């Protein structure tokens, strides 16, 4: 143990340097002058706690490791049902989940349905980015740009040309895809980390343009009063606009603002199911196989005659189009959009969803999206610490389980021994 004492002292000293000045002393602005205030005893207590904690952990590293090795690890594979059984039950399970999703909103409060709708938007975004990051292995840090393109497409089309949500939805996807293609074409020749920074720059460019092109986008004030989607021409408002009918008049029921919320939720469910279906199909097509092959080894792919540019571009374009759909729906749900909704942090959250869920795993991405939107709502008193924990979890996750919570499983055969 005496050999561990110097590294432990060093680590404790580093911890003290990290915390003493920036946490222990606080800058306060009073009018034009700036003053320093020493933190309260509690904060210093925490600093001392951190320093001593780091010291002890470093000092006792070896005994702790030995202890951990002796702990029995739980074998949970036995708890999972048999794979054959699972395979047979799969269609039923899917039917159960889908019907549950459709029935559920009629039984809970408006707020819960609204939150679920938001979650579904993130599921859609996560699944879209999963194509780019998970399948094709291209790190896209500006994904939110395509989301913004989709949202602004609908907002502008509805404001200037009066197009409905359903007319705009394919257009928004298409336009986002065009943007994806335009950005992807030049930059996809770049190596992974360059690509990340260029896409990040692109995301910032789009946001700055939206913020400053005041005559078209309204600048920082955004665009408001965006129409909600309608059900075959039936509106969900209290009074019908000229030449159309409202939902409650048509079915002769009392007006309730809950109808609109549930309808939006159902539209989101529809879009997410469609997204999952399409991506599932594509993943099994030669194109989907090529994405994964390219991610694993680009040189091998090239030597087998695959064109990396076309394959990467297709992943980029498809991923962008899903962000476009999600953006269009987001604009319809909010009724108001401004560049503030499309900052880099949003890109980072979507990326975190993909990474935490396990790159390439659809089930993982869906679970991560649900966790990322529901957990902050549950832990409202920790709202302050939300982004701090978010960054910390991203780091810890990569250190502890770089493959994500539910890593992707490839179909494989196993030789049965015994």
């Amino acid at each position: 143990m005496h050999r561990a004492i110097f590294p432990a002292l060093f680590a404790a000293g580093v911890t003290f340097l990290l915390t003493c000045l920036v946490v222990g002393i606080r800058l306060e602005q009073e009018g034009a002058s700036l003053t320093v205030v020493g933190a309260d005893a509690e904060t210093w207590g925490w600093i001392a706690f951190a320093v001593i904690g780091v010291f002890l952990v470093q000092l006792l590293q070896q005994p702790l490791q030995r202890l951990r090795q002796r702990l029995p690890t739980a074998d949970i594979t036995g708890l999972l049902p048999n794979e054959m059984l699972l395979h047979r039950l799969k269609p039923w399970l899917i039917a159960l989940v889908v019907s549950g999703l459709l029935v559920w909103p009629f039984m809970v409060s408006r707020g819960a349905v609204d939150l679920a709708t938001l979650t579904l938007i993130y599921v859609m975004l996560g699944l879209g980015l999963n194509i780019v990051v998970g399948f094709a292995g291209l790190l896209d840090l500006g994904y939110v740009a395509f989301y913004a393109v989709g949202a602004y497409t609908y907002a502008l089309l509805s404001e200037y040309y009066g197009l409905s949500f359903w007319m705009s939805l394919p257009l928004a996807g298409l336009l986002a895809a065009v943007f994806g293609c335009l950005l992807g074409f030049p930059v996809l020749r770049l190596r992974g980390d360059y690509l990340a920074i260029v896409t990040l720059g692109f995301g910032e460019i789009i946001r700055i343009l939206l913020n400053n092109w005041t005559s078209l986008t309204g600048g920082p004030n955004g665009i408001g009063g965006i129409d909600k989607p309608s059900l075959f021409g039936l509106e969900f408002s209290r009074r019908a606009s000229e030449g159309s009918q409202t939902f409650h008049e048509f079915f002769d029921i009392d007006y309730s603002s809950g109808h609109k919320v549930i309808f939006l939720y159902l539209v989101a469910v529809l879009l997410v199911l469609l997204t999952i279906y399409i991506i599932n199909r594509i993943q099994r097509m030669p194109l989907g196989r090529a994405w994964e092959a390219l991610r694993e080894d680009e040189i091998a792919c090239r030597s087998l005659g695959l064109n990396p540019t076309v394959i990467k571009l297709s992943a980029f374009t498809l991923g962008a189009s899903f962000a476009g759909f999600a953006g269009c729906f987001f604009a319809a749900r909010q009724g108001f959009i401004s560049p503030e909704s499309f900052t880099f942090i949003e890109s980072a959250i979507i990326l975190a969803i993909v990474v935490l869920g396990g790159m390439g795993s659809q089930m993982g991405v869906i679970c991560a999206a649900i966790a990322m939107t529901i957990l902050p709502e549950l832990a409202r008193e920790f709202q302050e610490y939300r982004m701090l924990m978010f960054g910390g979890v991203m780091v810890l996750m990569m250190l502890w389980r770089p493959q994500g919570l539910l890593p992707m499983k490839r179909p494989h055969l196993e030789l049965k021994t015994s």
Partner: protein
Amino acid sequence: MTETSLYVLQQLINGLTIGSTYALIAIGYTMVYGIIGMINFAHGEVYMIGTYTAFITIIGLFTMGVSSLPVVLLLALMTAIIISSTYGYAIERVAYRPLRGGPRLIPLITAIGMSIFLQNYIRLAQGSRDLAMPALISGGIEFGDPDVFEVSLSWMQLIIWGVTLASMTALALFISRSRLGRACRACAQDLKMANLLGIDTNRIIALTFVIGAALAAIAGVMLGLYYGTINPYIGFMAGLKAFTAAVLGGIGSIPGAMLGGLILGITEAMTAAFFPSEYKDVVAFSLLVLILLFRPTGLLGKPEVEKV
């Protein structure tokens, strides 16, 4: 001289000032990239922490009754360097070293997480609003025709140029003359081979992080005093710009980072002179995209041969 040319001269001075701080931050990116081939996304936050430390030290010393400006500034610079270097070291040790040798995307994602973490750590510790400090060093030289356009070169700008020049020279001497500098160069050429020949590569990698962080802290102190306002979010944009500068000059090349920083600073100042100033960020990123398209290795970078 005409008004336009004087105006351009003024923007050139401003651009050189900003550009030299970009260059200082960019060196941190370029040195780390040169050795372990990763983008240290959290580098901008180290710069931000340097600025905060300097502000805390300056105000703290004034409160304690130290009134000699050179002493205060020197102490602030040293504290900022020490604290920022510790952060650089700790980030490498905790977040990047365990991941070394893995797939390339993993450390990059960790770095993004680290950046978000540090940003919010400072936000929680120091508050999220802008903090403004009255200018400590005012005045300067003014020249040009008072009737047409007066070009001003403030003492602060001169100090920034001087400090940047001094740090760059020190770094160049360190890299080219000292034993550790030679070890750094060896690691940049071939990490495995350097390790085989008895260089403690872990130590050298930690050293690059520390040097990068120290230079970022110097830039942080200078820019903090120059602008006079700070908030926890300044690191993101500065980091992005510095990275652009590093790529512009050729990532992995130290003279490239210096050149790239200056070019980026001047381009930005010129854009701000003739277009609405919000578009200067757009121009900076467009420049990045263009450079990567037509010269992916940057101005002074060497092409990388991909080995199977």
